[in-house]
């Protein structure tokens, strides 16, 4: 099992690691990241990014996809630990930047001190003063 850290959380997934390659089922990639493999390429939320022509086999073998290669193709950062047991996939700078320029406040869910989760979207209908602080 491999631990996959994505914007959608932490996922324990069945995967085969081969150096910088991370082979997993296309359905697993979709569950963990929202990106699905379609005939026209990688798609999420109605937008598709084609795979490079003639290089399909580098990304897809049978039901499995190289999630790391696909992610790099999307310009997203990919990092993993020394053992290859933990992989982190981040959203691309373009996607983060576009989200901010949309002016739609990015939603998140975080626990309070009792462990109860709160989402920003729970407070829709109020003016929210969202402020960071820290003990340090």
């Amino acid at each position, binding site marked *: 099992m491999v631990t996959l850290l994505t914007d959608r959380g932490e996922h324990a997934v069945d995967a085969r690691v081969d150096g910088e390659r991370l082979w997993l089922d296309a359905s697993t990639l979709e569950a963990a990241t929202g990106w699905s493999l379609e005939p026209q390429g990688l798609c999420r939320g109605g937008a598709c990014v084609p795979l490079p022509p003639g290089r399909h086999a580098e990304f897809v073998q049978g039901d499995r996809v190289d999630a790391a290669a696909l992610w790099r193709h999307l310009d997203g950062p990919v990092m993993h*630990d020394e053992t290859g047991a933990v992989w982190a996939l981040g959203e691309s700078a373009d996607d983060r930047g576009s989200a901010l320029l949309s002016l*739609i*406040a990015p939603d998140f869910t975080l626990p309070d001190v009792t462990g109860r989760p*709160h989402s920003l979207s729970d407070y829709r209908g109020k003016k929210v*003063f969202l402020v*960071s602080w820290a003990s*340090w």
Partner: protein
Amino acid sequence: MWQALYESLKDRGFVVIAVALDSRPGDPLPWIEAAKPTYPCLIDRDHRLAELYGMVNVPQAVWIDEGGGIVRPTESAGAYEGFRKMNRATKEMPADAAKVNADARATYLAAIRDWVERGARSEHALDHAAARARQPRITPEIVRAHVAFRLGQHLIRRGRTEEGERWLGEASRLHPDSWAMWRQKAGVNEMGLASLPDFWERVDALGARRYYAPVDMKGMPG
């Protein structure tokens, strides 16, 4: 820190959500117990808020309207860098620096009140073009830094401290503007504050650059 503001405005459709960028969940608890806030205080071990909103320090804030729209992007939450003039031995602040700090905070709090009262008619609620222009620029290095930070925190939580710390160092290297990443990793003094000599060296290295970017708001010190 925000309790009085929240108490006075909570019946007017206003809420404070305070997010502690703290990777060790026990660290913020004494502060929360002392302040007894009645607004939500959330714990953000992976600095997710900073990743999503382009924050680099605390306190920074975003103003969000009833429809979930950003009307003021990430900016210093009225904090001003008077502490740079502090006497580091006695921890005393010169009176003029303390006054600028207090004036900045008062101006900022008054602006929040104006927004809660007047909504989009408040001069402090930015129109779309102005709000977009003020959004932080997210670079490939910044998104890489947050992935490294998250991976590092994950490893540290599983006892792989040395490897995790290396990722945190990589995160700071990739995103040197983030004081949150740097101070989270730094050593702390007897007060639990990351203000050991290496902090002051890093502050001094700023030179004319700012620790808190000035808030672009009428009445704010420059």
